[in-house]
């Protein structure tokens, strides 16, 4: 039985396309209108809303909640004060990434963890013997992302606290008399917020946001727009950039946090001062330099891209999906040295960009490589260069 989200009743009225994915068994619009790029520009130039309710949500409470999470999460949860949130990940004991998610700390002993894939039993088993309660509250809440340069102005009309809320902070607030949690979080790489609201009140809150956003041309955006936004933001996605280490059949499908570009989460691992599931394997990886891959951004040489297609009497495609993900990356000798995991044409950057995995020695910014693609049914390559991510990071994102 396919699920719908608490916002579905209203958002579906605004959807004239009726194209959905089944995001974890839940209807999730690919697009609301004929033009996903227009939805994309709502986020980059005004304000858009995205229904992120299908994420799993786990309440983690009790005197040992912090202990459980600090022993499970890659990022040090002890540095997350109540009122803050962390983007984090968790690994298996080999140091391979299982999932990522955002953990919101509401009190010293109270957390809400979001996850892209079910993870309750994993945490329950890790919590055996600890004074901690874990509850799947996925159905209890809707989550609405309100993203874009005007998101703050729109939400400040409803919740004055939006004006001063810091990056990755959250606060209790009220919209139309309904209690919500407002967080300065999102998956677009832009200025943005998320509103967590009890499912029964979700439509009322959505209506208030849409009404406040109307003078600002607010519009809902679907997964196609989100995909371009998150790639520009350099944000990885489970089952695209990596697979759950506990479910893969091959280690080639597994990555360590460092390999995934999450090395910045690993403070205290190299010196052994912090322990969590997989940390010992990761420590060895860091000390011995055994990472197989480095994650990097790649940028396609625009002139080369155009020339390749024009020489074949074709128009150079500049669309959302010009290449299948996982195209091979080659060096000058045409040896495989990596692969692209996500690839898209970026309208704000006017270039094709990708998230890629290359041999660590080739990851320095500005390394010139080649990306394999087929033009007119022949394999060929286009010039690319590695570049740091995020590709797009406006000052407003954190200011």
């Amino acid at each position, binding site marked *: 039985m396919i699920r719908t989200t608490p916002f579905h009743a209203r958002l579906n009225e605004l959807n004239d396309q009726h194209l959905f994915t089944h995001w974890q068994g839940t209807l999730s619009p690919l697009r609301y*209108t*004929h*033009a*996903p*790029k*227009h939805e994309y*520009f709502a986020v980059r*130039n*005004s304000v858009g809303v995205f229904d992120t309710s299908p994420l799993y949500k786990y309440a983690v409470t009790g005197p040992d909640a912090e202990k459980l999470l600090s022993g499970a999460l890659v990022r040090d949860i002890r540095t997350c004060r109540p009122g803050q949130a962390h983007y984090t990940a968790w690994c298996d004991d080999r140091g391979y990434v299982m999932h990522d998610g955002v953990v919101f700390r509401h009190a010293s002993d109270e957390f809400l963890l979001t996850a892209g894939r079910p993870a309750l039993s994993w945490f329950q088993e890790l919590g055996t013997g600890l004074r901690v309660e874990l509850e799947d509250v996925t159905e209890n809440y809707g989550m609405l992302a309100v993203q874009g340069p*005007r998101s703050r102005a729109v939400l400040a009309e409803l919740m004055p606290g939006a004006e001063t809320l810091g990056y990755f902070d959250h606060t209790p607030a009220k919209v139309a008399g309904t209690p919500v949690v407002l967080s300065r979080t999102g998956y677009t790489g832009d200025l943005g917020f998320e509103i967590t609201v009890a499912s029964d009140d979700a439509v009322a809150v959505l209506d208030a946001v849409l009404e406040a956003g*109307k*003078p*600002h*041309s607010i519009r809902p955006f679907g997964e196609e727009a989100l995909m371009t936004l998150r790639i520009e933001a350099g944000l990885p996605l489970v089952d695209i950039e990596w697979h759950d280490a506990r479910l893969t059949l091959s280690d080639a499908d597994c990555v360590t946090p460092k390999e995934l570009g999450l090395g910045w989460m690993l403070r205290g691992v190299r010196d052994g001062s912090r322990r969590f599931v997989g940390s010992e394997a990761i420590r060895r990886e860091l000390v011995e330099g055994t990472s197989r891959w480095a994650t990097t951004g790649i940028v396609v040489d*625009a*002139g080369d891209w*155009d020339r390749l297609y*024009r020489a074949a*009497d074709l*128009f*150079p*495609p*500049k*669309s959302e999906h010009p290449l299948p993900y996982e195209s091979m990356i080659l060096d000058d000798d045409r040896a495989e040295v990596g692969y692209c995991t996500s690839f898209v*044409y970026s*309208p*704000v*950057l*006017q*270039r094709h960009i990708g998230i890629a995995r290359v041999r660590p020695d080739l990851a320095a910014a500005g390394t010139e490589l080649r990306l394999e693609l087929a033009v007119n049914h022949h394999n060929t390559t286009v010039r690319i260069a590695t570049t740091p991510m995020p590709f797009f990071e406006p000052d407003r994102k954190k200011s």
Partner: protein
Amino acid sequence: MSNEYDAIVVGGGHNGLTHAAYLAKAGLRTLVLEKNDLVGGAAITEELMPGFSFTTFSYALSLLRPEIIHELDLVKHGFLPLMMPSSFHPTGDGDYLLFGDDHTQNLQEVRRHSPRDADAYERYHRDLDRVCQAIRPLFDNPPPNLWGTDPEDAVDVKWLMDHLGGIDRKTMHDTVRLLTGSAKDWLDDYFEHEAIKGYHASSSIIGSKVGPMSPGSGLVLLFHKMGEHDGHLGSWAFHKGGNGGFTQVLARAAQAYGAEIRLAAPVTSVITQDGRAVGVALEDGTEFRAPVVVSALDPRRTFLELVEPRELPLDLVDNIRRMKFRGVSAKVNFALDGLPVFPALPDTVDHYGGFLNIGPTIEYVEKAFDAAKYGWYSERPFIDAAIQSVVDPDMAPPGKHVMSCFVQYAPYELRGSDWETERDNFGDKAQAVLESHFPGFGDLVLHREVVTPVDIESRTGLTEGNIFAGEFLAPQMYFFRPAPGYSQYATPIDGYYQCGSGTHPGGCVIGSPGKLASQRVLRDLKR
């Protein structure tokens, strides 16, 4: 401060700025002299009321050559073309055509009006795409000099002949039909429905003293189809902050490469010495010296005003004197209190995401043209409108809007009156047309700006208010733009060059003349 430069560009319109950026990038100490207080020429944005930004003249972006974006690193300087997701065409009977980004939905929209035209619509675009593909190399390279004596000219001519020889018979024939025929004849071969033809004919008359039934309108249609946005041919974008936002980006890029821009610096003449250009003089007598002087102005001013025509060959002077400008376009720009309502679509705003094409049928537009033939403006004009604040909310305060209306026909020379007298009457005619499609429109108007062809000329300098710096007529294109034998950006005066829209490939916010001219200058300097 030294007044010596390597190159001086006269005119800070988008081509002048593009040109200056390329020269500065190549290491030339480059000075841009702009007569107005703001760069951009006809591509400016002005805040006429607090919070309301008007694209006074030029109002959308499409033909800008994609390579310029990258070669000048424009994204770094704020280049941001916003998608215009739809195209809306009231059919005059209360119904409409609404096109968007989904091809199959567009097909259904065509089918709703004419099942027969649905597959014609696909063939039409495919055929037109083939023509665009075939002529793109001509568009993006300087025209060979057919009359040149240099061995390199022969190489260029051979390149052209080889290229033309490689075009298949049908595409070649289609190309010639477009270049020489009328939009109506071309469209009649595909479509039966009058409004579908009307929709496609709208780009065939922009900025030109032709009707869709006139031979030559096919060329104007084709020129506009050459535009692209993010790889989509014939598709348009709205630059963040309007085309004035775009020219500010160009100015920043040029300055980042080291070019200097002086505003309020009107050049009155190019100084020549022994048959070569050595500098320019401003209205106030200030002189600047450089071995390279490039005019980004239109051909009339480039050859007849900035220099002494007596220093030029007679055939060039004759050709420039007879070059057709004949502006027929005006703008009527509105600040609106809210969005207009189209009665058949009362509850949605999605039809306002792009152009609103007010010219239901070819016959309607041709009748609008009739008046212009006899020196008068249209009683019921054609309007190419856009509510730009829908695409870029920063153009107007929250909940308010700005609407740009490009209005045709408005001939530069009126018979028996003048534009100062007719300004408001003309604005009323345009507004009445809008009122007839969007009842209650007048109640929304907070401010109205009427920009006549005379205003275009006096403020931007474009001769007779022609938005392309010389009409798009076959005898004024390619080898012949601006005059036969002078289409390669150099002039008969050593060190004096031209880079404005009056050179190949022509007008619109396209950047090519500026870029191609820079290649010529740098080649001559062996840089």
